[in-house]
């Protein structure tokens, strides 16, 4: 999961040409959370034939895709895609999704409420066999599919029309990448809830260490993300046994101060505010 989140983070930072882009900042995580909550509240009743896991995953995926399309549409006009608008739209979508999730919680009974809120905190404690298989499958697919676009993502950093002049089919590339991000984030949210800041911080650290070349950044981020989340999860299990602190809380607690210090130091590494 850590690998998936970090990969999706690295790809969205490249896609939006902004080192601050992160699935949770541009509304994908919010949308996926809403989709999953809706699936938990309504889906299980509506589609009793399917296993709960599938319904929640589908809901999260659909929510993620809807959010990313909406944000992208809002931020794009004839002159191109504005990153600032995209971040603002992402904040708005996240707020809207948060409100709707609260609405579901308000009308939920006690059991469902506890399930939604525990799951929102993010955790890896429930690892049933099909869940692990789904996670492994998606991780494997993304680890193979995304690094293939490394060179194209490098070109995209020059700007969309510059990438087109280098022979990249930009429209198709963006559609493919957005679909992969939504899949990765959707499944990850469905399985583990919202695990904050892995997608933002890991690519940042890796970029500082080995440079912004996506051909190395993507596999590097995947590995570092996996290691980081493994450490965070181990810490979450060890800190207060036998209880297990939801790992999403831990990554946010560590990630936010780290992120703020990155913001202050960006200029030193030649990062210009976008």
């Amino acid at each position: 999961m850590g690998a998936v989140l970090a990969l999706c983070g690295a790809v969205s930072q490249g896609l939006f040409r902004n080192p601050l882009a992160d699935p949770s900042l541009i509304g994908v995580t919010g949308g996926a959370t809403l989709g999953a909550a809706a699936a938990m509240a309504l889906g299980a009743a509506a589609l009793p034939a399917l296993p709960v896991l599938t319904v929640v995953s589908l809901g999260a995926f659909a929510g993620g895709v809807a959010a990313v399309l909406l944000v992208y549409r809002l931020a794009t006009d004839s002159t191109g895609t504005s990153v600032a608008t995209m971040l603002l739209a992402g904040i708005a979508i996240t707020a809207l999704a948060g409100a709707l999730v609260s609405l579901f919680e308000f009308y939920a009974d006690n059991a469902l409420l506890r399930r939604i809120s525990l799951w929102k905190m993010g955790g890896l404690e429930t690892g049933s066999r099909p869940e692990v298989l789904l996670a492994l499958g998606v991780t494997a697919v993304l680890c193979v599919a995304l690094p293939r676009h490394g060179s194209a993502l490098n070109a995209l950093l020059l700007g969309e029309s510059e990438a087109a002049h280098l022979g990249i089919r930009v429209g198709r590339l963006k559609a493919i990448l957005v679909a992969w991000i939504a899949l990765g984030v959707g499944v990850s949210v469905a399985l583990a809830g919202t695990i904050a800041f892995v997608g933002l911080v890991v690519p940042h650290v890796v970029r500082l260490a080995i440079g912004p070349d996506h051909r190395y950044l993507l596999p590097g981020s995947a590995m570092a993300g996996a290691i980081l989340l493994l450490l965070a999860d181990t810490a979450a299990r060890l800190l207060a046994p036998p209880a297990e602190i939801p790992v999403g809380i831990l990554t946010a607690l560590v990630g936010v101060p780290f992120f703020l210090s990155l913001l202050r130091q960006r200029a030193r590494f030649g990062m210009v505010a976008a």
Partner: protein
Amino acid sequence: MSVLLAARGLSAGWGGCPVLSGIDLQLGSGEVLGLLGPNGAGKSTLLRAMAGDLAPLAGTLALEGRTLADWAPEQRARRVAYLPQASKLAFPFTVHEVVMLGRLPHDAGRRADEAIVAEVLAWTDTNHLASRLYTLLSGGEQQRVQLARVLCQLLHRAPDEPLGGRLLLLDEPSAALDLRHQQLLADTVRNLAARGCSVVLSLHDLNLLSSLADRLLVLADGECRALDTPAALLTRAFLGELFGTELAVQPHPLKGYPLVFPAL
């Protein structure tokens, strides 16, 4: 001289509203065409239409007889390279990595890529910057690096190959350059053109344009006002009317091409 790029009745613009209309032009191989005109005349729009950014709203624009849109993106990228007015790369790539991005459309192999990159770094006097971070360079240095990237996109397999059938589009390439690097740019453009590469460039420096261009396309309000040699067009009367200001024109003391001065 064979025709590389042909525009017929070309209109182009953003959001369906034409900035440019009725452009007729035939660009030969190895020809250097200068775009001249006041701010907002449509110079950048014409360059972006030639680069394939903007589909023609009316008329046609064909590279070697085939409409730009009919070229596969990978194929077109090996023929046409475009340097925009401003670049907005905000990630800390090294200069070498930025220039190497220009090799993306090619599969000449690592050795040829490195040889070509080394050569264009020399052309643009950016050798000594190769391992620096692009984001920490000055504006003029960044412009030279972007120029190097665009130049190495035009080369296929070797730095000294003939360059027929290729088109270099430069939008204000000298805006941030000091005098020495302006001269270096002019030398590079002349050298490429002599090897068969066609060049279209817009410059506000009339004297640099006058020394470089075989022909000038004069744009005003999105229309073609004139298309002729610098010697025929760079006259006091024509320029004064075009730019709405008093100017003086003298031949260059050594080379003879027209030089333009403000008549204070």
